[in-house]
């Protein structure tokens, strides 16, 4: 392992402090039921999603995690290339996983924050609950917002909108149309104000595509890649690949607070000084949102509080040869969920390859805990409890009219 000067991964015992038995905390919490498992593994039945030549599921690398961690929108590889499944994870590690087909394609995306709608790459918005119930025969409600590859969308806080009675959705992608606009700005955002009632969905406001970040060209150049919008729609992460200063690195930039503000600041909030896979945002609370990403088939998370900047924490492996196979997501209660392959090994040394999902509680990560203690910082919570998970699942189910 190479330690980079700014981005340090803390080895488990490197900063062990007396009086705080870090490693016993998660086990104790899991044993007495006050915390979920620090890391759990949910194998996926390949028969449900198709097998590759090694008998494992032929899944894609693109995936999005619902706010309650119950649903995963995931692309396929192999014979089902271009199709998208909605995978329902069980509430318990030994529970059954359900795979639903969808009418969506390629890297279809959710409206983050609520998952009120799932959006196909042509801009067709489907009600999430329609896809849960009707699967492939679900019909879109309307077309709008940004479309195309690497698009993402988020529901904005209605308080910052001109009409709080509406649903406000901001989406982001590459500039679209004739591409005459690359010189006008490297990315575009578009904000819709929607009225959604029993009669259907009406697009009441549409900002139209807005070029952003033109002002950053003298520093970042004019091409960003791997863009990802934050859950609250007020920031995005991306790598400027032709920087005029320095080297390419994953960075976080600010967007306008107001729903229909025509100019976005693109102010640099953070430079991860690394080039991982897509950096995905968690939910902001009274603390800024965590970020999570894959790097070299491992999953990392970062806590953006200023005292912790420059530090990154790796999700522990509790199984053999754990390799992240898709990019991760963060639930509202803070769990990190990602697709992976691993091996289950018996004491006699025989191992079985598995593909499925890993669910991790970053608050129980020993390195993170030790570093917080070392810096005298409060953890947002000691751990994620089963009650937290249940609460999120119930909240999400109620929001979408689903059985918990």
């Amino acid at each position, binding site marked *: 392992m190479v330690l980079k000067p700014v981005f340090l991964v803390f080895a488990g015992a490197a900063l062990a402090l007396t009086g705080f038995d870090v490693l016993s905390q998660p086990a104790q919490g899991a044993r007495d039921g006050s915390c979920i498992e620090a890391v759990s593994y949910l194998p996926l039945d390949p028969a449900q999603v198709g097998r*590759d*030549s090694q008998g494992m599921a032929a899944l894609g690398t693109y995936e999005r995690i619902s706010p309650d961690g119950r649903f995963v929108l995931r692309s396929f590889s*192999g014979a089902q*290339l271009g199709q998208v499944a909605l995978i329902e994870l069980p509430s318990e590690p030994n529970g059954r996983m359900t795979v639903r087909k969808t009418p969506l394609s390629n890297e279809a995306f959710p409206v983050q924050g609520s998952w009120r709608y799932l959006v196909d790459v042509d801009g067709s918005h489907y009600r999430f609950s329609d896809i849960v119930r009707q699967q492939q025969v679900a019909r879109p409600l309307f077309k709008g917002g940004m479309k195309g590859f*690497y698009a993402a969308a988020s529901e904005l806080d209605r308080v910052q909108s001109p009409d709080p009675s509406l649903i406000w959705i901001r989406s982001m992608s*590459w500039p679209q149309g004739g*591409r005459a606009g690359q010189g006008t700005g490297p990315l575009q955002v578009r904000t819709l104000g929607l009225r959604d009632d029993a009669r259907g969905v009406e697009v009441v406001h549409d900002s139209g595509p807005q070029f952003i970040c033109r002002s950053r060209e003298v520093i970042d150049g004019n091409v960003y890649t791997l863009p990802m919008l934050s859950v609250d729609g007020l920031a995005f992460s991306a790598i400027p690949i032709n*920087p005029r200063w320095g080297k390419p690195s994953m960075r976080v930039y600010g967007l306008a607070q107001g729903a229909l503000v025509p100019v976005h600041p693109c102010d640099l909030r953070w430079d991860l000084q690394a080039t*991982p896979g897509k950096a995905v945002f968690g939910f902001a609370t009274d603390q800024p949102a965590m970020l999570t990403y894959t790097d*070299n088939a491992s999953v990392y998370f970062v806590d953006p509080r200023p005292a912790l900047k420059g530090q990154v924490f790796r999700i522990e492996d509790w199984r053999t040869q754990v390799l992240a196979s898709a990019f991760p997501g963060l639930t509202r209660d803070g769990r990190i969920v990602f697709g992976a392959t691993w091996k289950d090994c018996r004491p006699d040394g025989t191992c079985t390859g598995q593909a499925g999902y890993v669910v991790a509680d970053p608050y129980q990560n020993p390195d993170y805990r030790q570093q917080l203690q070392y810096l005298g910082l409060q953890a947002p919570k000691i751990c994620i409890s089963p009650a937290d998970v249940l609460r999120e699942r119930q909240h999400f189910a109620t929001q979408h009219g689903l059985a918990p």
Partner: protein
Amino acid sequence: MRESAWGFFTPSSPMPRLFSLLSGIFLSAWAWPASAQDGLPEASWRAVRVMTAEEKVCLVSPPTDASKPVVIMLLSPRMVYSLLEWSRMRQAAEAIGYRVLSWKDPRVPEEEWRAALASPASTLNDPYALHAMPARCQWLWRGVNHLPMSFVSLGSQLHPWPVWGVMPDEAWREALQFRWLALQRALVHPSRH
């Protein structure tokens, strides 16, 4: 944090190749506006390095005309846009004078590759241009975090800043030529490395 297998951002001394430089001048002159050449950051051309013997064998095989810039594209069916956008991006690069070498992710079983290429969604009409990489080259893919991933080389020189993902033609051309300009600049200023 692990170091990438590609040795990103590791500058090393380039080998001057006057012929490559002269033959490339025409292409760079029309493809890049003067303002872009003026704005080429030092970090970009200082990052240029000589390819290792393994990289040459694995990535630029068969050997190519040293005077022609090469785009090395790494592709996987597990990132769906790798396949759906590959033909367009390859043709866009060839149209502005690049040779494109496209490599299949060797970590993906061949059966999965075949199934993906034969799937109804696949838009590939030129699979002959997609090459299998020898098993001994698999180590090169260790640090790859996103696919497709593309590199630009000229002769034995490699620009180690990847172009991650797919993008519209205008951005793609700009990303390629940013690197090619840096490769040429590095050939002119080898002593400053």
